[in-house]
């Protein structure tokens, strides 16, 4: 399959932020923390004009306006960053000090006075500085000798050192949300000291070392010199800053290290090792937990979008996506991840829907219809700079994009390969509810078609055989989501067999070897899957209903598929002790009734799979003309409910079973309160005089017990029956109770 950009699941905004491109006169800075883009131009001989473009995300860019201010020109600016409230701008011009400028309001006018703070450690060089996340006006200097944490008092235009830590440092990585700095040290730069920055505090975790591969071919190393001078030690290249990143995936902080290898047979390969950092509340050492395996070497950049790790390969102009929450091969310690799609997809310009549709019939001619930005800049351009998590800046073209994940495209690519993986992956994406539901629907459609789809269809590989366990697996996933305790995730279904299923000949024995949910999985797997892989926006029971079940099926096969899906889902929910919503049961009962599967309905109720409820009981009562036993099921259910005695009485009376009704009332202690004429009417209408006599006598006894007299009162509305009784059995028979 030739991948084209229109298939790509990773897209660049069609509405990039434009700015003055970098030139002799213009300098551009990007602050990934605040998502501020600074364009610095020389205004006149002693001042600079700084333009700030907030670029949070496409939706927010309108609300926060760009603004500009003037800054004294006293030396080349190395970096500038606003504090969280945008009231203080920090500007670094030298390697020993940072200057601060106050702002009256966020986006307002700049103070004319700058104040400066040099680093406290003598002879230290500032490698960078960060506004910390823990306190509003605290700034962290990272120097080659350690960390210094200052508190800024803008009113006094002064800074105060609150904390410092000594640590030799070559370069560092910063993760703002986690407030964590990773300081690299050692001759190979492969020793890391992690610092967690709190309010006026620095917490250091034990130093750990990253193992390095032997030096790859020199061409790779020389492709970029930004990492600093490379001095081989013991045949190993020092770790470069651009090969290390801190990223948060599924709520866990990881230190990622890109390692370039020379393959034994020539060529190069890359692996990205993820070192899971201990969570803040638990002590422990960082642990190498995951390995993202890439068969290609070369210049790479990493983005993190929606918990996916996107690895961009410049030379191939392709991006690989990894999802560490998906099941992966493991040796019991490390998990080895392959890209989510076999084929790497290029980044693509997102295009307006209208153009896409036009393009589809003639995919070859899409080049002409690329939007304007595509003409202005080239994908995977040399001038691209990647900022974590998801920003790409082309400084020369003056454009800034964010990368977005299109779950629908992801689904289209992954589904034919492995529907189970696809559903798992979609399940973990944000805003993929509809796409998850669509994928499930696709599986359901496979169920309904008795014939495997035509070979030309991309779904051909995902035949009925595989879609069953996959469907079950997906429903297990959904159910796991609703479980109060995130128990072990279901084991993934087997890979699809190579050929569509055929009863007569099946060539894929492995396809049956294990089916999810049914087969228990090993202890080891459980531990490894305990990764917090909670979906951000999971499909709930009601979503499933709305997207998959609400639309009434038309054919018997569709009803069958519906029953299949509901029962698998109910099983998955039950396995995790999640209560099942009533609408699932109602849909189930309706589907079974419509297709005449009363016997199965009977057994499901008999084993209490369908929970007792008044609506279901009433539904069953209404079915008794179609299926007589439904009546018995309904009465049993009402009895179990305990709150439907009235209904039971009505049912018994409607059948003329007045003696049973009296017995029932006695058994639940309600005989004394029932209206006498109601019972007498049914007994009389039955035409059975013995029955009428018995009921009449029972009520007379009740009268005697409650009121001291056997006679009925006018309020009982029983005059007619008293007369009938007297007429039949004689006036003297009235009130003649035998002494008990």
């Amino acid at each position, binding site marked *: 399959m030739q991948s084209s950009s229109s298939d790509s699941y990773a897209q660049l905004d069609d509405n990039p932020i434009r700015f003055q491109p970098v030139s002799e006169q213009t300098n551009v800075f990007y602050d990934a923390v605040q998502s501020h883009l600074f364009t610095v131009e020389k205004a006149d001989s002693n001042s600079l004009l700084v333009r700030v473009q907030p670029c949070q995300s496409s939706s927010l860019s309108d609300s926060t306006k760009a603004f500009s201010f003037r800054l004294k020109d006293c030396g080349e600016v190395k970096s500038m960053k606003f504090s969280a409230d945008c009231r203080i701008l920090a500007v670094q011009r030298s390697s020993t000090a940072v200057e601060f400028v106050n702002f009256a309001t966020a986006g307002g006018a700049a103070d004319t006075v700058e104040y400066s703070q040099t680093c406290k450690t003598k002879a230290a060089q500032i490698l960078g500085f960060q506004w910390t996340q823990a306190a509003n006006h605290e700034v962290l200097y990272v120097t080659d000798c350690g960390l210094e944490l200052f508190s800024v008092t803008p009113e006094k235009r002064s800074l105060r050192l609150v904390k410092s830590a000594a640590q030799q440092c070559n370069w560092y990585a910063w993760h703002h949300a986690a407030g964590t700095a990773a300081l690299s040290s050692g001759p190979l730069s492969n020793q890391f000291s992690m610092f967690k920055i709190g309010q006026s505090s620095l917490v250091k975790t034990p130093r750990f070392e990253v193992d390095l591969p032997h030096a790859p071919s020199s061409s790779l190393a020389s492709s970029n010199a930004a990492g600093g001078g490379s001095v081989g030690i013991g045949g190993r290249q020092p770790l470069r800053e651009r090969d290390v990143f801190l990223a948060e995936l599924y709520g866990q902080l990881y230190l990622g290290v890109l390692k370039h290898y020379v393959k034994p047979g020539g060529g190069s390969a890359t692996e990205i090792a993820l070192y899971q950092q201990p969570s803040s509340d638990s002590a422990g050492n960082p642990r190498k937990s995951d390995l993202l395996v890439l068969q290609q070497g070369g210049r790479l950049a990493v983005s993190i979008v929606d918990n996916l790790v996107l690895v961009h390969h410049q030379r191939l102009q392709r991006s690989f996506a990894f999802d560490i929450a998906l099941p992966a091969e493991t040796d019991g310690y490390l998990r080895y991840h392959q890209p989510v799609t076999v084929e790497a997809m290029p980044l693509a310009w997102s295009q307006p829907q209208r153009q896409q549709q036009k393009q589809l019939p003639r995919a070859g001619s899409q080049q002409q219809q690329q939007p304007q930005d595509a003409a202005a800049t080239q994908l995977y351009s040399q001038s691209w700079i990647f900022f974590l998590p998801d920003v790409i800046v082309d400084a020369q073209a003056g454009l800034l994009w964010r990368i977005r994940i299109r779950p629908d495209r992801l689904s289209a690519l992954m589904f034919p390969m492995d529907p189970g993986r696809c559903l798992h992956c979609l399940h973990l994406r944000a805003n993929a509810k509809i796409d998850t539901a669509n994928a499930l629907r696709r599986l359901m459609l496979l*169920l309904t078609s*008795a014939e495997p789809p035509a070979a030309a269809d991309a779904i051909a590989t995902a035949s*009925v*055989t595989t879609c*069953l*366990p996959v469907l*079950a697996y997906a429903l297990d996933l959904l159910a796991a989501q609703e479980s109060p305790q995130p128990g072990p995730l279901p084991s993934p279904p087997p890979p699809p067999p190579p050929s569509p*299923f055929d*009863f*007569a*000949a*099946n060539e894929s*024995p492995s396809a*049956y*070897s*294990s*089916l999810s*949910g*049914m*087969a*228990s999985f090993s202890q080891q797997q459980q531990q490894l899957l305990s990764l917090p892989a909670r979906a951000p926006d999971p499909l709930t029971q009601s979503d499933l209903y709305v997207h998959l079940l609400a639309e009434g099926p038309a054919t018997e096969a569709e009803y*069958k598929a519906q*029953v*299949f899906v509901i*029962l*698998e889902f*109910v*099983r998955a929910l*039950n*396995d995790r002790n999640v209560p099942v919503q009533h609408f699932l049961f109602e849909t189930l009962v309706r589907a079974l009734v419509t297709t*005449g*599967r009363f*016997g*199965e309905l*009977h*057994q*499901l109720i*008999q*084993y*209490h*799979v369908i929970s007792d409820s008044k609506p279901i009981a009433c539904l069953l009562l209404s079915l008794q003309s179609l299926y*007589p*036993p439904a009546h*018995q*099921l309904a*009465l*049993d259910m*009402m*009895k*179990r409910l305990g709150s439907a005695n009235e209904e*039971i009485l009505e049912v018994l009376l409607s*059948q*003329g*079973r007045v*003696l*049973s009704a009296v*017995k*029932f009332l006695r*058994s639940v202690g309600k005989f004394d309160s029932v209206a006498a004429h109601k019972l007498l009417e049914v007994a009389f209408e039955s035409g059975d005089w013995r029955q009428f006599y018995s009921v009449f006598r029972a009520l007379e006894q009740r009268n005697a017990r409650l009121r001291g007299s056997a006679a009925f009162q006018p309020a009982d509305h029983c005059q007619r029956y008293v007369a009938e009784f007297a007429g039949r059995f004689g006036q003297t028979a009235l009130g003649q109770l035998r002494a008990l």
Partner: protein
Amino acid sequence: MEDSEAQCEQFFIFSPSLCTREGEEAQKIVYFYPASTELNLQVKCVGLAEAVVRFTADFSDQPVRCLTTLKSRQVFLQPEPGYWFVMRFSVPKIPLQQQAAAEAKEDAEYLAENVQDVVCHELLHQAYLMYRLFKGSIAMTLERGNVEILRQKCNHFFSRYLADPNHSCFSIYQSTLLEVYRGVTFLPLSKRAFLQVHCLVQRVQATFSRVRFACYLHSDQLVWTSLHPTDTRCVYAYLVHSLFPRHAEDDLRNLDKGIGSSGAFGRFITGPPNLDDPSQLGSVPRLFLTGPDGGSLAECHMLVYRSGRSSLCLFVDAGDPVTYEQYLALDRLLQPLMRHASDTVQTCSQQLSEASAASASAASGSGGGADSHIRFLYFNHMNSAQKSTVFVQPEGSKRPGVLAVKRDLMRLCADVHADHCRHGDLVDTETVAKTAGDAWLVAKKFDRRDFFALVTQFRPANLILVTEEVSRLCQAQFHSILFIE
């Protein structure tokens, strides 16, 4: 007295329409048991039966059911138009003393009350149902073939059916009310375990589209069925009384061998005995099952797959024979699933039975457990569910249990049942009886459910104590259904 029981003396099938000319009455006979009977006698018996049928038809819309004579009881059934099944039972007798015999002008006293019409009739009905299950309806046979083929089929089937002691048709000794109900014992399970089984069956059926029906049994108890209720009863009876006992020894051998060794737990009971040998596909019973519409019969192969104590019966469309590859594919699919399901069901049912045993002994204080003085028999006509404690299963035996109550008590049950039946379905009734042997019977019928409590060795016994005891039992057993006492 106990050993003199009714015997099936004769069984024949005839159709008056098969003989058009005088002198060819033998043509009417489709099947006659015992086959050794002289043809002349056969013709006489059939002639008498036909005469009774025709004679009684003048007096009632209802066809004749039973003919009672001093020495025999004859039951009639017309399962399909024009075809009559007749079974004759001998009435048991006790030889009389010479003097008494002379007075009565008979040499023995005939115990007519020992033969119960309802039981006899049901035995006959079941014989027909079993025949239909294995050979298809008579109409179907005639449509596809001719009377000669019908005769062959009847001969083939009934000669073995009547000889099979498991069907208890030959001797009425084991036949009691239980035989009349021929109920299905459902295995009590948690919904979780049940869903496991259900989803397994669902997956198998969705994967193998040729599987039309399926049922799942565990320890001879039913867990799931998608068969028509009538078929369920017949198939269940066939499996539990005939097929499974035949394989019981294999099972024991396999259980001993299976643990720790090859790990191949599942295997086909019907079908290839050894999956490594493609030349031996074994024999698979062909059954005629009621279609989902409740009308036409569908011909199916019955594949039975066994794993542990669980058995999965798949009823595969009989269009083409199941090939070796298909068996392999099924085995691969079923092996892990069945093993898991079997384990789950086993664990769950064990827990449930332990819990119920604990609560039962806690509730009754003393006298709980297997040798209780109170035994019961429950049958629900709506789903053919049956529960009973009237049989005691000797430890470790695979044979059907022995009756734990006296036969006269069981006969009383059947009589009371027949009495209750006369009231119609919608009338709830209750009968309490005391036998000469100081045993009590409390029979209840409520909303198509029959319940018999047999109280023996209960002293001091009076009506109130007995009903109290029985209502305690009901509360323990039937708390989740509407069963008004």
